[in-house]
């Protein structure tokens, strides 16, 4: 039933929240403009009407207290889903994310649980420039104690959000602002997508492209282009950035002997740097070419649409990187 149904990512996320709130009364939502307004990107629309203001809470503009309160509620028996309107705002809540949420279980000798989901969105695509367009997942990858999830399809968005809500750890759930309206298959029922498992979106034999979030979609488009030239790319969508699926990536590189990592975040100290280093450590002998990184330019995200587009990878730059590995 409903296996051919298509939803947008936005609606898939909304459905995941509704289903978990119906299933478990400990689940509640809290954040800026999530109730009456329905969320800056519409993900929480209608939740207030179904669940009421006790469980769908508009807050003041207080990012640190929103996340701090989420932690306190999570430690004491609730399963909060808090919304950080833009991942860029993590800057004003970072103490709560990395010093508190991520560390509490460890600091307290494993006696505390923090089942907190921090839903947020990042990335470029709306010309809202330097303080509303960043891809900051590398910060969270660098923070032991957190999990970081970044879906690229409606199916994964729903299944991963349900997994994140049921997980007993703090999860950064980072959506991408430019792909909320992407449509795709999304079953009606209750299902989960496991955190930490990558998906092979397209099998191939000549090169492995590793990506996630919006860049996984561009990587698929690049693979299509390359297929027209007789180049067969395996495209891996990590889906989870931390802990990322080392196993699937290394196995694929062992088959294709070439790796291209694609991310929207800035290149230096990025997710690609970490994945590249792990490939070097675990599969150096398998490589027939240097690992390629296609990443955001090391710059502040500009406002101009022309400059913004130039700051992040596109299909052509991914295609070019794959070709370089085959020279």
């Amino acid at each position, binding site marked *: 039933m409903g296996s051919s149904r298509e939803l947008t990512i936005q609606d898939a996320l909304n459905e995941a929240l509704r289903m978990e709130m119906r299933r478990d009364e400990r689940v*509640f939502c809290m954040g800026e403009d999530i109730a009456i307004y329905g969320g800056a990107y519409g993900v929480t629309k209608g939740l207030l009407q179904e669940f009421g203001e*006790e*469980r769908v*809470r508009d*807050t*003041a503009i*207080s990012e*640190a*207290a*929103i*996340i*701090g*309160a*989420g*932690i*306190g*509620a*999570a*430690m*004491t*028996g*609730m399963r*909060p889903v808090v919304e950080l309107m833009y991942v860029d705002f993590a800057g*004003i809540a970072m*103490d*709560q994310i990395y*010093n*508190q949420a991520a560390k*509490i*279980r*460890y*600091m*307290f*000798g*494993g*006696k*505390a*649980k923090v*089942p907190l989901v921090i839903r947020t969105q990042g990335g470029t695509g709306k010309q809202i420039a330097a303080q509303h367009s960043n891809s900051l997942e590398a910060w969270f990858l660098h923070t*032991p*104690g957190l*999990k970081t999830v970044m879906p690229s399809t409606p199916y994964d968005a729903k299944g991963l959000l349900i997994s994140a809500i049921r*997980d*007993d*750890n703090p999860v950064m759930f980072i959506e991408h602002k430019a792909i909320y309206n992407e449509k795709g298959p999304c079953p009606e029922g209750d299902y989960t997508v496991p955190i930490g498992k990558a998906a092979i979106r397209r099998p191939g034999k000549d090169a492995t492209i590793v990506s996630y979030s919006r860049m996984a979609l561009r990587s698929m488009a690049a693979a299509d282009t390359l297929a027209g030239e007789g180049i067969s790319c395996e495209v891996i969508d990590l889906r989870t950035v931390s802990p990322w699926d080392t196993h699937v990536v290394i196995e694929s590189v062992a088959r294709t002997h070439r790796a291209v990592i694609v991310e929207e975040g800035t290149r230096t100290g990025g997710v690609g740097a970490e994945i590249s280093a792990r490939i070097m450590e675990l599969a150096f002998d398998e490589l027939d070419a240097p690992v390629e990184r296609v990443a955001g330019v090391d710059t502040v995200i500009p406002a101009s649409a022309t400059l913004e587009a130039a700051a992040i990878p596109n299909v052509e730059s991914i295609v070019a990187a794959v070709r370089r590995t085959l020279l």
Partner: protein
Amino acid sequence: MAPTLARNMPRTLTPDLALWMLRMILTIRMFEEKMLEFLNAGVIKGGSHLYIGQEAVATGVCAALRNDDYITSTHRGHGHGLAKGGDPKALMAEILGKATGVCRGRGGSLHLADLDTGNLGANGIVGGSLGIAAGAALSAKMRNSGQIVACFFGDGAVNTGIFHEAMNMTKVWELPVLFVCENNLYGMSVSVNRATGLTDLADRADGYRMRKAIVDGQDVFAVLEAARHYGEIARSGGGPTFIECKTYRFGGHSRSDARKYRTREEERQWRERDPITVCARRGIEEGWFDTATVEQIRSEVAAIIEEAAGFALSSPEPDPHELTDDLYAA
């Protein structure tokens, strides 16, 4: 859920309760003196933010709480952990970084937490636990559990951003929190009057239209009375209260502190109002106990602290093979 009184204490001020409080103040004092001894002997390097002088605050507040109520604590948190019912052995072992510590040697002095007693943790970040307190209170309210949260913080925390965010959130949602401000007059070296424009930090509450009270933090009976009164308001849905406790840390901020920012005369005046003396004098005057009883409790507590020290010193170090255990819940 039937309310349980902290350690089954009576709700009126009885000799038993007065004795419990005297015993707790002495326990905290002697615990901290043992820490000082360990610091001076080089047994420990961290864990030097001692609570000596402020014992009546944690004791009076926790005496007003139920066992299932929560506290959040600070970098000066040994006293809070003890007063909320923590085992001196497990707390001391934690400060020594031992495997038998309440946090298995992961947290130490700065992150002493004891979920079993409702202690949601000391915090190495000034103001870091204010949001957590709000969230625990939100949880209590949503679960309709009747629990309240006592959120301890120092005078330094009132100038942090999250203090304002958490105060505001707690008042808007009328959450059951006692914001217990331990105003010991100095945030490390900077005095309150150099850090704020206020004489009474309780005035911060006005900006949120929050109820406020100012209490003599050296007098455990005054602290108890305020915590009971405002605690019951919070428990019955009446929202948060800001309770400023005027107190003093008798030692420095930490062991490296030469205390150049205050005078020895000021210290002498505050030491005259030692919380042990204030508590013992009142109890003897009221006829709740006598001098011999005070001395008897003192020697009983000394034995408990020696036992805790022996336990902590003889406990094993954590196993480095377990270094990354507990980063994630399964």
